[in-house]
């Protein structure tokens, strides 16, 4: 069983991890979604959001824009991150389950336009780098 976290903005991935109001948590086992639920993170500061990832036992973070500090912090704590994604959350989740995302935790690049090159799959609207 693995747990992934996706900061969300309505039905889309949140454009900014540090400003996200809600977090979708998804339990995955054998490549299938076992459960998913949302938690409110609107009162948490950026560093508290980072810590929450560890406290909740999150194995992977999938997010939109992420600031350098958070990225470094999560990298330091060995949490894989798929960042700088845009689009519908369920589409991104499907893409993740089919192995279409590449973690950029260990990549030197932090910016979204670098990440686009690393994006391996998904629908066109998920990531504009695919255009």
């Amino acid at each position, binding site marked *: 069983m693995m747990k992934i976290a996706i900061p969300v*903005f309505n039905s*889309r991935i*949140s*454009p*900014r991890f*540090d*400003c*996200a*109001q809600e977090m979708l948590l998804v339990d995955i086992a054998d490549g299938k979604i076992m459960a998913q639920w949302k938690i409110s993170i609107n009162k948490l*500061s950026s*560093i508290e959001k980072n*810590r929450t990832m*560890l406290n909740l036992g999150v194995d992977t973070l999938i997010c*939109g*824009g*992420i*600031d*350098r500090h958070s*990225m470094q912090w999560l990298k330091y704590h060995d949490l894989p991150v798929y960042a700088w994604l*845009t689009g519908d959350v369920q589409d991104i989740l499907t893409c993740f389950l089919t192995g279409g995302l590449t973690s950029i935790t260990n990549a030197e690049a*932090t*910016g*979204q*336009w670098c990440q686009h090159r690393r994006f391996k799959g998904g629908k066109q609207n998920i990531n*504009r*780098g695919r*255009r």
Partner: protein
Amino acid sequence: MKKLIVNRQLDIILDSIADGVFTIDSDSNITYFNRAAEKITGVPRKLAIGQKCFDVLRANICQTSCALKATIEGGESRINLPVNILNSDGKTIPISISTSVLRDEQGKIVGGVETFRDLSAIETLRKALRFSGRIRNHSADIISKNHEIQQILNILPDVAISNSTVLIEGPSGSGKELFAKAIHKLSRCQGAYVAINCAALPDSLLESELFGYMKGAFSDAKADKPGRFARAEGGTLFLDEIGDISPALQAKLLRVIQEKEYEPLGATAGQKANVRIIAATNKDLAGLVKLGAFRGDLFYRLNVVRLSLPPLSRRREDIPLLIEHFISKFNAIKGKEIEGVSDDTLDILMTHDLPGNIRELENIIEYAFVLCRGHLIEVRHLPRELQESVLRKTHQEAAANRISPGPPPLGAAEAAAILDVLRKNGGSRIRTAMALGIDKTTLWRKMKKFGVTYR
């Protein structure tokens, strides 16, 4: 054709201005993105157009109170609203935004336009001003015009924000904890500053103090007790006298620094430690490593940033400043109006060795405050042992002068001349006396007086 030319001119104009400009349709899709907008956000125009504005700008207000959306819905413009965006490098950029509605030729609202200005330069200046104020505030207790201390103070803000482990070396009473506190305050971390003197506690107690214990870990452990690491979570743990901890505890400390994890006594699982460690010692840790009394791996883990504080005897120029500082402090605490110290007192304090450094000086001033009823601290207000040591020193110097007075300045020249002639005459007293035009008895007397010998 004419409309095409006008549009191109408009593009040229909008690309020439320093402010970012973009427009969106009623679904928040970007329809125009100028060159300055590309530069500020780091997003190329061809990739930005057609995207949702919040996925490109990534402003802190996008998800809660989008100004452009409010403008389109309510028709009211916003002017110079300060927000911040996340650029494509993951850097937060402060900007000010202005919004207004976009209408077609019939006056129908078809979207919105936002202009934004990069405030990074202004913000950097503001931060620099604020930060210099913080340095002044947070290192207010560090009083020095000594160049070694000034060099440390100059790098202190960089050290503070680096979050690296710091090793502060310096003799007892040289102000190591003041520097540790200043680093903590300047680091802007949220957690607490927790200090512990490693030499003050026996080994077993120190371990439970540092790591805490769980209920039932030993017979008196009736409840869980969080250790200093837990109390300093997200903050700074100051380990004073680190050179005095046992090899066993050194190994445990090394694990915390390496793994960022520790186990309270009696716990079955480790706990994460997000704590910045500042260690201090009055010992030569590198020397202890060579002697095998301190673990080399722990030393190198602690020694990421090393600050070496000089003893007060190497920064005597700070003594008058420190005296003034302590007098102000004790005037406030004890409700007195002492103005300063007499010249004789200052002479004594300036020449005294002060092996206890700043702490000793503070204690001397505090003692003087007890006895001083006037406005000036006199020699008689100083601690008796200090007066006695000064008296003893004077006597010793006088005695030394009596035993071996040494040649006075003119005598030194005379002695040098005698020695020179003695050397030329192969040590012969008679020839030397003749060469100098003095009696050999006078020569003998002068040689004895100036301690001149030649064999």
